């Protein structure tokens, strides 16, 4: 997994906007999406979000990937809704879907994970009095990314071993050894964290 996550590096206004403000903007947009019930304003919202992609200079290839994923979903939902609710309902539904998902993706594409982490840490600071340790957020992110890398390696080995034993289609032959090693890794990691003074 890419430790940068889904972030698409860039220098646009949207990239430079603080993560907290962007998140508030996204919340406002999501509210609008749920309140609006007619195609025209929802369509305008979709266009606005699309302009956001242009503004952020998201590479065409990346936009294409997202559009394809969205299209599959939209076609599926559209056909179902058309059948169940009629044409207008289906159109409204799909416009909502496009606006909400595209905006959420735009946030993710233009915001570094580390910026979100610091924003979250800042946001949690008032909770310090009730025992929350905001500085642990960054640690949790790093630890989990690292653990995904380790477990992916283990999962690959376990799958090979299952194949070697002719059990490549068995969920148990994959999941049980993977879990046993996962838990063992957790115990070792717990010791290592203690040894490193966490």
């Amino acid at each position, binding site marked *: 997994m890419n430790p940068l996550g889904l972030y698409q590096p860039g220098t646009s206004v949207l990239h430079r906007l603080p993560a907290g403000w962007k998140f508030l903007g996204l919340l406002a947009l999501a509210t609008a999406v749920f309140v609006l019930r007619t195609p025209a304003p929802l369509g305008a919202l979709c266009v606005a979000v699309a302009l956001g992609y242009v503004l952020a200079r998201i590479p065409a290839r990346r936009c294409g990937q997202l559009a394809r994923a969205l299209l599959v979903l939209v076609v599926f939902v559209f056909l179902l809704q058309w059948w169940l*609710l009629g044409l207008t309902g289906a159109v409204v539904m799909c416009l909502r879907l496009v606006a909400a998902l595209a905006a959420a993706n735009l946030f993710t594409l233009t915001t570094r994970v580390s910026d979100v982490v610091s924003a979250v840490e800042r946001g949690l600071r008032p909770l310090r009095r009730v025992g929350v340790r905001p500085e642990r957020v960054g640690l949790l992110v790093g630890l989990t990314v690292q653990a995904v890398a380790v477990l992916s390696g283990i999962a690959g080995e376990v799958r090979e071993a299952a194949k070697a034993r002719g059990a490549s289609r068995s969920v148990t032959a994959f999941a049980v050894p993977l879990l046993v090693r*996962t838990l063992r890794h957790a*115990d070792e*990691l717990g*010791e290592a964290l203690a040894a490193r003074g966490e």
Partner: protein
Amino acid sequence: MRRVSAPRASLPTADLARIVVFAAFIAVLGIFPGFYVGGSGVPIVLQNMGPLLAGAILGARRGTASVVLLLALTAIGLPLLSGGRGGLAPFAGPSGGFLLGWILSALVAGLIVQRAERPGLPTLLLATTAGLLVDYAIGIPFLGAYTGDLGAAAVQSLVFVPGDAGKVVAAAVVAALVHRALPGTATGPAVRSE
């Protein structure tokens, strides 16, 4: 193995490590391409077994925490969901409720497993089934609110029932085997006193 069957000292980091590593485990279930089970020809993505396993193996508290951690890290932009999805979009989509329902899945499965002294297959089966049902209980109304028609949402969700039923059974079997392989690792008094 000595290290797993007998915790050496009461380390507060042991819980943290289990939560983190299990969150990563659920992510890895999504990274691995689907399994072809039986002759169905349709790949089955195993990721939604993850929260059930988290509850059934780690217990309610740590299992729920690991699912919350996974979802939080997904939300801040790490591609931890199956197919490399991440960010806020999966939560904003029509199936976002099923994702949030994972939290309750782990909680409910964990609570049921903890009630048994030595969780056997029947208990685990009950736990994973209940876990899936609470996920539906969150996911279907969410979908209904999205589409404006609860009944239609319920009908749509029927598509997933056969696959999910298989996963509920598989999760219970897997959890039973793990409990047997590592007695005391999972839920139950051995761990709570850790």
